């Protein structure tokens, strides 16, 4: 058995080495195919298809895809709006204010989007100033009133002629002097 396989492999090797000899064709040689390396059709199109084994990148690619989607969902409209504003409504020009004209508080800014934000959301700085002044006035009045109240307390306590710190005494008509009315009682 072993001898048979050795013979067979030797014959195949010999046929491979010298393929043109008459006894060495595939059909009649011991049912062992010889690799005919000189007559193979070699095409260099896609190469040999390999099954590459690597860890999954599905989750990574899904994350990046979703990231891209959610960023561009608002990113693209914002970019389009800002470009249109910059192209069609340009930045403001600095001019001297006319004598009798009081500019609105948003007319002190250059970029149209800043102007819009100040117009839509913010109070004018004059109004903020006045609000702060009103708060200071209220606190000042409260502080002054507290100080005067302390002073008034002090005066009324010491002099005793004011309405505060009066202690209610008993009604004199309720006192019964009958047991002391005569010297002999």
């Amino acid at each position, binding site marked *: 058995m072993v001898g048979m396989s050795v013979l067979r492999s030797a014959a195949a090797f010999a046929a491979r080495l010298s393929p043109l000899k008459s006894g060495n064709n595939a059909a009649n040689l011991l049912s062992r195919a010889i690799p005919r390396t000189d007559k193979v059709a070699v095409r260099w199109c896609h190469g040999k298809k390999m099954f590459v084994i690597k860890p999954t990148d599905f989750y990574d690619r899904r994350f990046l895809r979703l990231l891209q989607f959610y960023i561009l969902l608002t990113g693209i409209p914002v970019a389009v709006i800002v470009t249109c504003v910059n*192209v069609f409504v340009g930045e403001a020009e*600095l*001019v*001297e*204010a006319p004598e009798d004209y009081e500019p609105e508080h948003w*007319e002190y800014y250059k970029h149209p989007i800043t102007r819009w934000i100040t117009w839509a959301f913010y109070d004018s700085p004059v109004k903020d100033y006045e609000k702060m*002044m009103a708060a*200071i006035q209220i606190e000042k009045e409260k502080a002054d009133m507290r100080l005067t109240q302390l002073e008034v307390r002090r005066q009324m306590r010491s002099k005793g002629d004011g309405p505060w710190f009066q202690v209610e005494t008993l009604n004199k008509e309720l006192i019964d002097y009958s047991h002391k009315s005569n010297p002999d009682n």
Partner: protein
Amino acid sequence: MPTDYDKGAYPEPPRQTPVVDKQTALPNPALILSKLFYYSVDLPVTTFRDVVDSIRSKNRPVYFHQKFRRVPDLTECHHGDYLCYYEAEMQWRRDYKVDQEIVKVVQERMRACHQREGSSYQQNCANEIQQFTEVTHNYQSRYGDLGAYASGRKCLMKQKERMIAAQAQTA
């Protein structure tokens, strides 16, 4: 186009274009490159800007500088008049910002002069350098170490210290 910068404060250096004295029949590569740059970069950019400006010039907004009225200073306020204190403080803060911008402008002029003159800046820019040192010394003496929580009151106290020191020095 936006308004040009102040030519008096930032003078242009004298032009040093050499007289063209062509002695060969070969084309000048510098000329070729400059024309190439002009047609490929300068002209498209300028036409784009002109187009955009013509679209923009129809509804062009304007903006102004805000002018503030002067109010009584901290020294002119009665004791306990918190409204006067507030107005004086706001005015002092606006003046602080203006002074910072003044220092920046003077510094920018000195740097521009330095850039223009090259290695001989110390003698050619003496005016700008002197102005800059003067302005920065004044700024330092007035607002110098007040810190982040600076206020008009602290600045006034610093001025008082300066006046005391000056008097002690002269006496």
